[in-house]
């Protein structure tokens, strides 16, 4: 019984770590592929939300119900508060500079 739980836990840790890797990878591809500063800010926030989210969930599962696990949850909370603030600051700075967002049919690509 205990063995089954331990195996499930290791499996879940692996799944979470892989999901975290996957979303970080998507985010990286997005930053390279997307056309302008605004759309890149979208995908940069993906790495923080689900990339770091699943990564920290894997960490919390690994260390278990103790100080470090609790702290990783707190870490996630602060990432969720600061990440949109940073993305907004970048987008707002671009907007105030007068950078027109890229749309379909724009030849600036």
């Amino acid at each position, binding site marked *: 019984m205990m063995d089954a739980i331990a195996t499930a836990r290791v499996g879940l840790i692996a799944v979470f770590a892989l999901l975290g890797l996957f979303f970080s990878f998507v985010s990286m591809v997005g930053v390279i592929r997307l056309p302008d500063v605004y759309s890149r800010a979208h995908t940069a926030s993906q790495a923080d939300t689900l990339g770091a989210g699943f990564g920290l969930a894997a960490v919390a599962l690994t260390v278990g119900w103790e100080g470090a696990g609790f702290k990783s949850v707190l870490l996630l909370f602060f990432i969720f508060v600061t990440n949109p603030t940073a993305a907004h600051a970048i987008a707002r700075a671009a907007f105030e500079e007068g950078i027109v*967002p890229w749309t379909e049919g724009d030849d600036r690509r």
Partner: protein
Amino acid sequence: MADTGDDAGGDAASGGDATDDPSPKSVVVPVEPTPTLRSTVAHVVESAAEGDFSAIHFVEIASWRNGDPLSDDRAAEAKRVLERVVAWAEADLDDVDGDGGEGVTIFSELIGADEYLFGPSDYVEVLAAYAESVGADAVLLDPEYTPVGNTTLLQPLEFALSNTPLSVETAPVSRPSRGERLRSEATGIRFAAMFGLSLAFYFVLGDPFYWFDWVTGLATATIVSITLSRISLDADPAIPRTPMRVIRGAIYVPVLLYEIIKANLVVARVILDPRLPIEPTMNRVRVIVGSGLPLMTLANSITLTPGTLTVRARDSDLYVHSLVPWARDGLFDGSLERWTRFVYYGRSSARLPTPRERDDCAILQGEAATEELPIAATDGGQTGSESEVTDE
């Protein structure tokens, strides 16, 4: 309390019941879409909650006459402004819930549309007649209120009003600018709340059974609450409002997580599959949430959800960049707005039409654009984004 607000909203929408309530302590507030309108509304609701007024009449004085070309459009626009003002006032009343916000009723009315108004004296006449009909004895002016075109009418209007029995006051608000609203009053409760919160956080990281952590923790919490209690909290925590907000916030977190995962999958697909096109556009949504913390919560939730990114907030207008039409539709359906209202004002306030139904949203770019992009330097931007793009 929520009942009062809802009833007033209903009355205001029909616009007829204003004359039924000749309360001795009513105030008339002429409104117009100005930069200071939001803070003027907040100010008048605050004074009403402190017991200065029992009824607030928001009026828009028509600068046109019924039957003019386009008069229907202008009346509809004026009605929209009034509806928005009433929604703001109700949100603010909810905020002061328990501090005397109960007895306040809100009315709104469009007046003066059956005649042409020329100078300040005409406006004062209409205003005074309306005040008399509803039994109001005070007028509160928005400092930027200029009903006729771009002329600064306030001084003559105030002057002309002084010849009437009405008492006149100008709301002590200034144009929204950077840094305004950043600091609020320091109060004991706020200080204590900030102190408790930072101490609790310190002990989550440290060890509450070790004397040294107590010494450093108390010192840290003191410094934090001295420097930040006036910035982080803009209202006193209150029972039961604050714990209720925390509980409802805890309900919101899984909902937000679900939305984030859903949107992440959609955006991941668009990014990884070169056949799927992206259609980024800038959009404008006028949201009905209180300024400060509720607006920040909503804007941050929108940005956290991949596919939508809050670029600017001008009063209650959010400028949101969307990556794919799916994300834009979700934004215009306003589910995050309703959830934010649920967290801050409770379940009954969460029931409201979507931004699409309210006609409070617009696409600013592309083929479906209905409004112009309010960008600072359009041609300067071209070159700016050129350098941004060419590194592909």
